């Protein structure tokens, strides 16, 4: 029996898309606090404003992250959501689950929480939405002891790393994103759970430049798969595409009649570097001109594959607009081998070099991309001991304000103005 009237939310129960309102109402039958979620949300719909208080520091002993405190600003009216803390549970790489695992987690959440979740949060964690302070420790005990699972990150720490589906079900992944993501997540548990950074820090691992996990837009260190050698071509399959026997782009465009597949128009002409051509019925690629944008491979997945000498491009410093504006990650390392044999040693060294620098000079709530902007890409490259290469920029600078140093100029900066004046009257 509904505890609050929800005429506005009820209007979100119709329509073809699944309704979270219907779902909440069903859950409320066994978890009555869901009525108060609905009640408070309905009030927000009436008044067009949130009713959650600002902040609240809660957590489990020994951790500084993983739980986000939240309190209702109308606790008397909606006692079921008086405390409504969020628990972030670290997700397995690629977000595969067994039903056994999910059922166990759901049983825990039914016992200790509101019964509502997010699958998943924006960063990638499983979000368990809404519980009381006194439930946090018992929940954490059961999570660690009964399930062998753990919380993710929140606050000024390493956030739970995330990866694309990778080689587990994608032919384009140029390295094992699951292996790297899992290895880095385990290696940096301390950094995930105990905030010691100027601000949040994110890793994301995408297997190819299609970047399905949005690494280049959202992560402080974006590890994006790429290759060094030639795109692998199956000329027989190219002919099948030309003959119209294979659908373009893996069938992604089959809902509309786009006309007969035209390899010249749809592949060759759209290549951003114009490095392909047809010759004697075969597709030719000048791989030295290729920038590996993935278009041709996306269009003809049965004919073209990434090269076999694979690794990753490392870009640094992406973030959403708060405060100085949005940033994409900037290319720093064009190609790095990703090998589990040496426990991703090169990547680890790269990560820790950034942290050493940023933890020392980063300002409070300054993402590493903002520190890079504040001090400049040249300063960052020096810190990283990376030689500048044209690949670091879209174009050379257009202003002449170079920060020459004392050592770079013959004679240095020290000069005698009296001696100068002896030769140049004022």
């Amino acid at each position, binding site marked *: 029996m509904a505890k609050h009237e929800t005429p506005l*939310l009820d209007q*979100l129960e119709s329509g073809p898309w*699944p309704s979270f309102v219907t779902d909440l109402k069903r859950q409320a039958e066994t978890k009555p606090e869901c009525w108060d979620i609905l009640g408070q*949300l309905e009030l927000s719909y009436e*008044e*067009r*404003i*949130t009713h959650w208080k600002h*902040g609240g520091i809660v957590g489990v*002993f020994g951790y500084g992250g993983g739980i986000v405190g*939240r309190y209702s600003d109308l606790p008397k009216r909606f006692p079921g959501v008086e405390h409504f803390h969020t628990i972030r549970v670290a997700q*397995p790489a690629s*977000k595969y689950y067994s*039903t*056994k*695992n*999910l059922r166990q987690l759901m049983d825990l959440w039914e016992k200790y929480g509101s*019964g*509502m979740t997010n*699958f*998943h949060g*924006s960063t990638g964690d499983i979000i368990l*939405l809404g519980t009381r302070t006194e439930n946090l*420790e*018992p929940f954490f*005990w059961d999570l660690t002891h009964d399930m062998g699972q*753990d919380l993710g990150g929140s606050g000024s720490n390493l956030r739970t790393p995330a990866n*694309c589906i990778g*080689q*587990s*079900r994608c032919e384009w992944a140029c390295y*094992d994103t699951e292996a790297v993501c*899992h290895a880095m*997540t385990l290696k940096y*548990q301390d950094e995930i759970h105990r905030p010691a950074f100027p601000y949040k820090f994110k890793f994301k691992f995408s297997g190819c*430049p*299609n*970047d399905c996990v*949005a690494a*280049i*837009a959202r992560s402080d260190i974006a590890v994006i798969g790429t290759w060094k050698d030639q795109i692998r071509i199956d000329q027989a399959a190219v002919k099948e595409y030309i003959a119209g026997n*294979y659908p373009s782009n*893996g*069938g992604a465009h*089959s809902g*509309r009649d786009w006309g007969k597949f035209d390899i010249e128009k749809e592949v060759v002409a*759209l290549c*951003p570097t114009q490095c392909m051509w047809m010759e004697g019925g075969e597709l030719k690629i000048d791989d030295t001109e290729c920038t590996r*944008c993935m*278009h041709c491979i*996306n269009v003809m997945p049965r004919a073209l594959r990434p090269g076999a000498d694979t690794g990753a491009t490392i*870009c640094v410093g992406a973030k*959403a607009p708060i*405060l*100085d504006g949005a940033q*994409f990650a900037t290319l720093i390392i064009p190609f790095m081998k990703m090998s589990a044999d040496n426990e991703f040693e090169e990547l680890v060294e790269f990560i820790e070099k950034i942290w050493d620098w940023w933890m020392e000079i980063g300002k409070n*709530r300054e993402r590493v991309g903002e520190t890079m902007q504040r001090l400049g890409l040249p300063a960052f490259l020096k810190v990283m001991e990376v030689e500048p*290469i044209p*690949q*670091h920029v879209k174009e050379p600078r257009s202003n002449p304000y170079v920060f020459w140093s004392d050592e770079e100029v013959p004679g240095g900066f020290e000069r005698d103005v009296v001696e100068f004046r002896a030769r140049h009257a004022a």
Partner: protein
Amino acid sequence: MGYNPDKPMDGRISDLGPPHYEQFFPAVIKENKGKWLWHEILQPGVLMHKSETGAEVYTVRVGGARLVSVEFIREVCDIADKHCDGFLRFTTRNNIEFMVDSKAKVQPLLDELASRGNKFPVGGTGAGVTNIVHTQGWVHCHTPATDASGVVKAVMDELFDYFTSMTLPAQCRIALACCLNMCGAVHASDIAILGVHRKPPMIDHLRITGVCELPLAIASCPLGAVKPAKAVVDGKEIKSVQVNVERCMFCGNCYTMCPAMPLADPEGDGIAILVGGKVSNRISMPKFSKLVIPFLPNTTPRWPETVAAVKKIVEAYSKDAHKYERVGEWAERIGWEKFFEKCDIPFTMKSIDDYRLAYDTWRTSTQFKYTSHIK
């Protein structure tokens, strides 16, 4: 034995990290990892991946709310137990993927999903609109300028046919963030729905002393609009702050740092629409979303202005763009002035940037050539 509050540190386990992913792989995934050759979308929402071993995995992709209940997840588990040997996965865009290892198992799975009302819409593949990634909104967050789940529901109801079909020129990624903090990182989406505030913060002088570090509140403002000031509370002069409203750009960062500076407001808050962003390096480099509609009101419960605006953009794009062209590539090819015209969106001063950011000569892409510079 469970948690003992008298001895909280006894037997405590920490820093386990996530469970190893491999134990959650369906058998066909485990056996063919790293061996996949190609894939094909057989129908909207149904993918087939072919392995070099000859094995095939069929994936059925299902959209839905990100805000889901324990009961719902159990229902998902029931389906996976019945059809998928007890395994499933989620995508980064909050879709659920059910996988089976033969074509014969696909139709029974689709029938099962269809038998459960509208809870499991199949689609979200290829040149269409897939699930909207979004934030918490009024259901959990303290800083939102709009709701999230409700707006998404209303927009997806209207765009539903684009979810279950593949008729667009390319994929169209829509994202919603309920304030400028952008937990949802909508700054690189084909269409971004962004909650915005339009009134400067109020100063709660009664509470500011107890809840704020004044220097942090002052430093939080990127435009120096927050200044130290004196205020009188109960006849006593206290240290507080004031806001130079002419400088305020309504980012809300001061409220994040100082709970005594709330800025949400029913009339002030609403939605801005940004378009033309993308993450992929395909053909063109990643692009930011650009602001084309500065404000639409929070008309609950179904945000008709926002729904109409998004639909109009999708339809104009669908009609006019070339095959493979993303919204941003289309807009750049035809020119932004044509974009505004074709989408019937009035261009205003608000779309002209008067903030700052000058790092645009850095290469924010994986596109580069192997020249002699790379050792």
